């Protein structure tokens, strides 16, 4: 109850909101792709156990 009334909001117009969404989406895809899917031997070996744990298709 108290937390509800204290919830802050930030007003962004549609363009700003979509810019933020796209920036977040693209950066997120870049990071997840690099750690989980990129076909680099060094990235694969470093992220090996994580790739298996997250169920990324791997070798």
């Amino acid at each position, binding site marked *: 109850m108290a937390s509800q009334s204290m919830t802050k909001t930030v007003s962004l117009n549609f363009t700003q909101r979509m810019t933020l969404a796209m920036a977040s989406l693209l950066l997120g895809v870049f990071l997840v792709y690099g750690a989980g899917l990129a076909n680099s031997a060094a990235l694969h070996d470093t992220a090996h156990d994580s790739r*298996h744990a997250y169920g990324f298709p791997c*070798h």
Partner: protein
Amino acid sequence: MIIRFLLVAIAAGLLSGVLMTGAQELKVTPLIVHAEQYENGPVDNHHDAIRTAPALKMLAGLLSPISEAYAHGNAEETGGILFGLDRFGGTLMANLVTGAGFGLLLFAASLLTGVAITLKNGVLWGAAGWLAFQFLPAIGLPPELPGFPAADLYDRQAWWMVTVVLSAMGLYLLVLRPEIWAKILGIVVIAAPHVYGAPQPTDIASDVPALLGAEFAVAALATTAFFWVALGLLLGGAMDRAGHVEG
């Protein structure tokens, strides 16, 4: 303003990645290490490189099917863990990167759908992420141990990516849209990649014991469920403090 929100999402993801690394050590990583003892085929020994000397690492990297098949004729990539980290360090770094990436994707989803992620609904957002990235793709491609038989890597990665995107879109239609047609379409979209079928290996024989595979599939899904719930709650709690985007 944009940078601040991105940093909040990244911070929640990094923290979830740390928690994931701890959870992974309980069951998932020991099972991977155990399975590698059975993974002794002549071309699939590159996992040994992770724990052996640099010279052997280079050799194994050159012999590795990943390098041969995917270095595009460029033999510069020789594998080995980046920045001289040990195995645990590599896993921690990968989980930090993956966690930050998933945090950003979850935040992007909340912006695109216009449904704020809060501490209250964080568990549901986390569950949606787990369904889209873990459980629904696992129906076609269960989390696999090293040494498991599998179809062509490119085919599986393509199917996995398409399935993740369709699952996320399907969940949006099914859960967040009130119209009946949207809910039916959502189910169709979620089912489509499974009706099409995931790439399967032609030979399913494996040296890795089935018991380890069964334990691993459950452990991986349970561990990632923990990760996604933690991420949803942390991101929701962080957004409650940072301020929810309106407009």
